[in-house]
């Protein structure tokens, strides 16, 4: 079995090279701004740009709203469907897979046609309306991931037993959700939240077609006008993504588990 291990290592090393070389090359490129020596000038230039702060701040705020709306839409639905309406499950699974099948570009085209300023719900008629539409679009993009995270969270805790126990103790429905279910799936929700954040923060297509001053369109603008700043921004984006994913990993160690019923 010696040969087996050799091939395993070779595959691993080749794969690792493909993933690490672009990161190193990008980092090296980002340091080349000053002629003849390495410097962090490109990063300084990025952070000094007021549009960097404003577009990044805008995307963070939209990201936070996306997370809140996503949780409010997904959590109660998953809970009640698991508990009382299991016949709705295939339908829910189908809906949450749709954003993976229908390209985001097609969806935003549909939004622009449907919610234009002369329609019944004129989202695109005002800046606030467009922000709401953008948030809705991002919730849709993140729906498959948020749903799966919450659904997995509810599978590992036994919600039926927890609910029955709480009911016997005299808790009402609101108490059950807020004091029993939510704390138990908090880690799962946060995982979904960080994943949502990673998806939303640099999103370009929808934000640019809705003409919102988000981080993604800002990145593209820098890409067409500057040489070294894009590399610095790529490294910064990678660190942000890494941070969001790292949080999911750290959180997963705190996930509560009750053994689920085997029925």
């Amino acid at each position, binding site marked *: 079995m010696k040969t087996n*291990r050799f091939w395993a290592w070779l595959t691993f090393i080749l794969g690792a090279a493909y*993933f690490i070389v672009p990161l190193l090359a990008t980092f090296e490129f*980002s340091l080349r701004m000053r002629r003849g020596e390495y410097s962090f000038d490109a990063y300084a230039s990025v952070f000094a740009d007021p549009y960097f702060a404003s577009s990044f701040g805008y995307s963070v705020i939209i990201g936070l709203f996306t997370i809140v709306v996503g949780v409010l839409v997904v959590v109660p*639905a998953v809970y009640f469907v698991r508990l009382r309406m299991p016949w709705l499950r295939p339908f829910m699974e189908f809906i949450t897979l749709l954003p993976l099948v229908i390209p985001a570009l*097609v969806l935003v085209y549909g939004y622009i046609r449907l919610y234009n300023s002369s329609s019944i719900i004129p989202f695109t008629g005002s800046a606030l309306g467009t922000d709401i539409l953008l948030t809705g679009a991002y919730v849709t993009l993140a729906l498959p991931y948020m749903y799966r995270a919450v659904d997995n969270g509810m599978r590992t805790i036994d919600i039926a037993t927890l609910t029955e126990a709480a009911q016997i103790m005299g808790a009402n429905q609101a108490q059950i959700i807020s004091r029993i279910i939510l704390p138990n799936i908090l880690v799962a929700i946060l995982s979904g939240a960080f994943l949502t954040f990673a998806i939303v923060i640099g999103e370009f297509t929808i934000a640019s077609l809705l003409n919102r001053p988000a981080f993604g369109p800002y*990145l593209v603008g820098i890409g067409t006008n500057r040489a070294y700043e894009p590399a610095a921004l*790529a490294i910064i984006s990678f660190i942000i993504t890494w941070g969001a994913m790292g949080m999911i990993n750290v959180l997963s160690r705190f996930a509560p588990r009750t053994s689920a019923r085997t029925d």
Partner: protein
Amino acid sequence: MTDTASPRRIPWDALAVAPFIIFAVMFLFLPTLGIIGAAFTDRAGNFTFDNIFGLFTDQILAAYWISIRISGASAFFGALIGLAIVLAIIRGRLPAPLRSAVMTFSGVASNFAGVPLAFAFIATLGRLGLVTIILRTVFGLDIYRSGFNLLSFWGLTLTYLYFQIPLMMLTIAPAVDGLKKEWNEAAQMLGASQWQFWRYVGFPILWPSVLGTLSLLFANAFGAIATAWALTGSNLNIVTVLLYNQIRGDALQNPGLGAALALGMIVITSLANVIYLVVAARAERWMK
């Protein structure tokens, strides 16, 4: 234990599921139906097939074809390479800490798509990229003179693999974990070679999962635009760039044709999923 305590019983079930349903209708069903409707409507609002027939021009067909080729190639190689790396890590008895590190990295890389990814590959394989320069100065190989271009079919496929391979790894790892060591031992005791084990046991079990991920990867690349846009601007004639230009400024001079273009994209990604469902159903028949 009766409902007399609360005179009006609150229909919690319906209330809890309603936001989800309303959301799905507003942001998934209605926009999609609107596109489908517009694809079959002319400017005066009458039913027509003209928009669909309008797709059959050289430019639009070429755009679909290059999109399908890039998505197909990046899905195929992404699945192949992703599966190889997962097998190496899980079955190749590499050190255990390596596995969690690789999986964490996959989570990051699969989300490191879009504009920053394009920047990274310009800094790597662009005309002034580090790898381009090292290949030229150290190895004397000028990849741009020998026909390579980052803004081409292979350049874009190579870039897409950066998120396709990790996505494959993340989705296929549970299936590879499901291959029990005992099956390999049993096969060996019955005299099977490693190749026979994979041919008759391992691969048939993994096949539905591989195929499912393949259709996911295809749809993932087919709908992607940000990476291509940041790499090439509006120059590359792929179907997403064409539709983007249409939405921005009616590049096709006909909104109905734009809707037909979008409908074509939905049909292609749906087809990929239907093929998967059919083959998966056939593959899983004997497993029950």
